[in-house]
């Protein structure tokens, strides 16, 4: 039997053993006879012997816990407030940490996810141009099929290079026609990620030859939602793009990268990707490229490897590369997936941390106040032989008990609101799907709870008086000012004011950005307009004529509907999610070589009445007319940014541009106002509008209505189905909704920050109230004397308020200095608002001052009710 088991045996039988020990000692005392008094204090002896068993720490802990629990239950008010404050703080931190952990910390759920990279090709920025356009992505260039073939052949750093692009196709499975987001990938895309199929198989080389049958892999959510998770789906045939597609596999429920798709097909099944255009033209760049680095290779070595290949290709095929060449760079997939959300998440986590800190300070203050009332109890315990360490331990046990309770509450809160947070974050990254309350999160919460307990427990535990005698002598109504405790309390109050100020500044800046974005003139009037996408099935509608026929009859049907004021078509509604379709172009008479790089612009298609319907002004020249038909000379309307940019000193009217090296010459017939098509916070991009009558690819219908536009959604559906029952309609939304959606991220961030700030303000205000109230009660006697000697109540009130004002002003000062130093971290989230925006600082300071004044004035008013006689007798 080892010592360990003996210890446990002793522990379990301690009562019996204690009895036996007592017996031994009794006999010993008897035998000592006359010398009995030499034996010492039998109780103490018994205890010391008992200690020797080595279980003292556990017994003391159990004792402390039991006692602490009793104390907490006896003070339900304090316990409840403290647990609530801590629970909110810890809950917010737990929820945010689980998001940060799932999105930013956890490794990608793929085999050796760190070896996965996203490749990027950029054209050297033209001399004029890019800076003006303000979008970093402007000069991003996709990859062509021929590029990729050469890269694969020549690379030494990559074990796999796989292409990807995403398109919407119409899938017919015998039921309702559905538009599916389709990932078009090369054969080893899933091998590269290291994904194994849930059912069936994934793609292999045999699926990517010209003779291959079209095959599909379904994503887990699509399979679950549309086919009820039926495993017999393998082998089913669907029609897409006028071909039979066979389902060969289902993906496991892993988060999909780079974005969510409903189904996946290989490159040969995609009608665009497999077109001769794509397969044979090196400058037809349309796909994204991902790679798996060989073991030991890094982003740097991979970049130089591809750089060598690209410069070799540039020499071989000079006509397919811009004069300045292309730059290949890469970024780890992990960074790429989270870079948009990282600053916001970290700021939110920091905010939550500060809220918890305020909660800690506040609970510490409460606990300090309670300590004053408990001083006698503690003094008695100390007098009876409890060591200082023992008392500290007791107090820390109590605070830890409290904070662990708060932590539990926080965990419940966090699990309740996590779903909301995940929905929010999924706007920015597909990694949101990986967020859950996992073991590391639980450990984080536990650590945080224990730490919290120690932090707020430390103040009261170590501020204990050492002078027992005084504590014992003092009456319960001690009126002596306890300067020591007060200093800590004032310090805590200063901290609370300072932190609330910082949080309020964060929220204030965010809200200001949001308001600015909301009031921004986006260049169009979206009032009472319904937008919907009608992605015509190009295998059915083969040319301009077919498209125009469909849209014309749709327009007629809709216009016949009462309440419809106008119908127009467009290639994309303003502020609908998406990015510009950039394309190379040249201006006639302006040689491209002058510009040292690729010259790209966004191309849009609009019907002749689209500008009028959207309230976009024609600044010069003319609108599209019915005469701009198929056979008529092709025309273009450019936006103001384009005109200023490419024709700074001349009239753009009647100049000609070409998107295809001279095959099509577009004559500029008009200039229209700029529209913030791709985001309120983004500058307008260079845009060329083509006439719908000539280039019919305007798949977005815009309906101006008399009443609520959403009421017309069913009419739209009826109209479309009456023309073609197989035609899906997607993204039915009003323009106001689209504008609202584009601000959702800013709005939710504002709301979250404001929520945290409000929470902090409330906690800090109660803290200030508490400090002032205590101050008043401590000085009751002094105030009584003052009043008795003839002081005016107003003067006394002013004196008390002045004292709390000092705390507030110091806190405010500290807050302003710190906020000025750290608000810079917010700049990525802000729009048109400097992080040190004076108006925000002034406004927030004013709000905080008012709240703080009220918070200290209310308890201070109690001094006016002090009755000098009673106050003096109170001692």
């Amino acid at each position, binding site marked *: 039997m080892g010592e360990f088991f003996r210890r446990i045996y002793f522990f379990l039988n301690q009562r019996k053993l204690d009895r036996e020990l007592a017996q031994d000692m009794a006999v010993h005392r008897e*035998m000592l006879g006359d010398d009995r008094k030499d034996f010492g204090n039998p109780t103490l002896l018994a205890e010391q012997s008992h200690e020797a068993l080595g279980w003292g720490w556990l017994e003391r802990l159990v004792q402390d816990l039991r006692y602490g629990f009793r104390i907490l239950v006896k003070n339900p008010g304090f316990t409840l407030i403290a647990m609530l404050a801590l629970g909110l703080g810890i809950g917010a931190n737990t929820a945010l940490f689980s998001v940060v952990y799932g999105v930013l910390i956890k490794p990608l759920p793929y085999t050796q996810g760190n070896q996965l990279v996203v490749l990027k090709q950029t054209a050297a920025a033209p001399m004029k141009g890019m800076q003006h356009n303000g979008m970093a992505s402007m000069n991003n260039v996709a990859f062509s099929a021929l590029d990729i073939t050469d890269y694969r052949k020549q690379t030494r750093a990559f074990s796999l290079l796989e292409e990807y692009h995403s398109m919407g196709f119409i899938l017919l499975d015998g039921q309702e026609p559905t538009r599916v987001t389709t990932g078009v990938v090369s054969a080893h895309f899933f091998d590269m990620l290291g994904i194994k199929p849930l059912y069936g198989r994934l793609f292999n080389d045999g699926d990517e030859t010209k003779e291959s049958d079209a095959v599909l892999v379904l994503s887990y959510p699509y399979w679950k939602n549309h086919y009820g998770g039926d495993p017999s789906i393998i082998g089913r045939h669907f029609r897409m793009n006028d071909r039979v597609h066979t389902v060969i596999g289902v993906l496991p429920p892993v988060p999909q990268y780079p974005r969510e798709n409903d189904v996946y097909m290989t490159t040969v099944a995609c009608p665009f990707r497999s077109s001769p255009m794509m397969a044979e033209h090196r400058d037809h760049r349309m796909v994204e490229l991902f790679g798996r680095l060989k073991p030991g290779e890094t982003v740097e070595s991979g970049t130089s490897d591809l750089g060598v290949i690209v410069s070799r290709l540039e020499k071989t095929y000079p006509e397919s590369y811009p004069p300045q060449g292309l730059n290949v760079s890469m970024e780890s997939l992990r960074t790429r997936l989270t870079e948009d959300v990282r600053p916001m998440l970290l700021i939110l986590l920091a905010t939550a941390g500060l809220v918890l800190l305020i909660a800690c300070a506040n609970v510490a203050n409460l606990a300090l106040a309670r300590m004053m009332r408990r001083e006698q109890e503690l003094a008695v315990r100390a007098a009876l032989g409890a060591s200082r360490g023992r008392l500290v331990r007791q107090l820390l046990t109590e605070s830890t008990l409290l904070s662990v309770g708060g932590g539990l509450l926080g965990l419940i809160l966090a699990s309740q609101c996590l779903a909301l947070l995940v929905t929010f974050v999924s706007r920015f990254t597909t990694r949101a799907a990986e967020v859950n309350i996992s073991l590391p999160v639980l450990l984080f919460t536990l650590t945080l709870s224990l730490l919290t307990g120690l932090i707020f427990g430390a103040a009261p535990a170590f501020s204990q008086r050492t002078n027992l005698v005084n504590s014992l002598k003092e009456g319960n109504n001690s009126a002596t000012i306890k300067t020591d405790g007060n200093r800590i309390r004032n310090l805590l109050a200063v901290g609370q004011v300072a932190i609330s100020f910082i949080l309020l500044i964060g929220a204030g800046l965010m809200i200001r950005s949001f308001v600015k974005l909301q009031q921004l003139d986006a260049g169009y009037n979206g009032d009472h307009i319904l937008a919907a996408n009608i992605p015509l099935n190009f295998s059915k509608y083969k040319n301009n004529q077919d498209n125009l026929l469909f849209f014309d009859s749709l327009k007629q049907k809709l216009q016949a509907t009462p309440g419809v004021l106008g119908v127009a078509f467009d290639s994309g509604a303003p502020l609908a999610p998406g990015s510009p379709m950039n394309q190379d172009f040249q201006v006639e008479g302006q040689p491209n070589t002058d510009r040292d790089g690729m010259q790209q612009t966004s191309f849009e298609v609009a019907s002749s009445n689209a500008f009028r319907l959207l309230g976009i002004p024609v600044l010069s020249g003319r609108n599209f007319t019915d005469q701009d038909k198929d056979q008529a000379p092709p025309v273009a309307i450019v936006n103001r940014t384009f005109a200023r940019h490419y024709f700074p000193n001349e009239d753009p009217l009647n100049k000609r541009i070409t998107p295809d090296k001279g095959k099509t010459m577009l004559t500029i017939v008009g200039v229209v106002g700029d529209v913030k098509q791709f985001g309120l916070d983004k500058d307008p991009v260079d845009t060329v509008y083509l006439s719908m009558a000539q280039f019919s690819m305007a798949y977005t219908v815009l309906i101006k209505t008399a009443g609520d536009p959403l009421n017309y959604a069913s009419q739209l559906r009826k109209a479309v189905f009456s023309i073609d029952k197989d035609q899906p309609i997607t993204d039915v939304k009003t323009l106001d909704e689209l504008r609202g959606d584009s601000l959702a991220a800013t709005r939710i961030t504002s709301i979250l920050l404001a929520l945290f700030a409000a929470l902090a303000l409330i906690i800090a205000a109660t803290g200030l109230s508490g400090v002032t109230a205590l101050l008043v009660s401590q000085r009751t006697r002094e105030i009584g004397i003052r009043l008795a000697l003839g002081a005016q109540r107003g003067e006394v009130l002013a004196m008390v308020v002045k004292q709390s004002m000092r705390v507030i002003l110091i806190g405010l000062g500290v807050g302003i200095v710190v906020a000025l130093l750290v608000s810079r971290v917010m700049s990525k989230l802000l729009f048109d608002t400097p992080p040190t925006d004076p108006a925000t600082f002034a406004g927030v300071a004013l709000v905080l001052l008012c709240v703080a004044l009220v918070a200290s004035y209310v308890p201070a008013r109690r001094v006016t009710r002090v009755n000098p006689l009673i106050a003096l007798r109170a001692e």
Partner: protein
Amino acid sequence: MAKNEMLPGTLGMLVLRVLQPGALHGYAIAQRIHTLSNDLLQVEEGSLYPALQRMLIKGWVRAEWGISETNRKVRFYKLTAAGRKQLQSEMTDFGRVLQGIHAVLNKA
């Protein structure tokens, strides 16, 4: 050294040593040490019982019920094999330390 003080750390060894010939109860242990030391050493009861508890846990001694000279039921402490080994090693260690001390005291 005052008569009732003991070199720290030596109590355990002395207890083990006096238990070597046979089991004793607490009082007898104290008495035996007192007598054997020519009344020089006085075992503090305050240290004896905690020490015995520790030795029980370590497994160096075992407690058995017996009857005292005064006809009371009392625990007799008995050396175990582990206790014997412990005593041996403590005595060796102590002897070495003592030698060292002697050497210093005589030469310095």
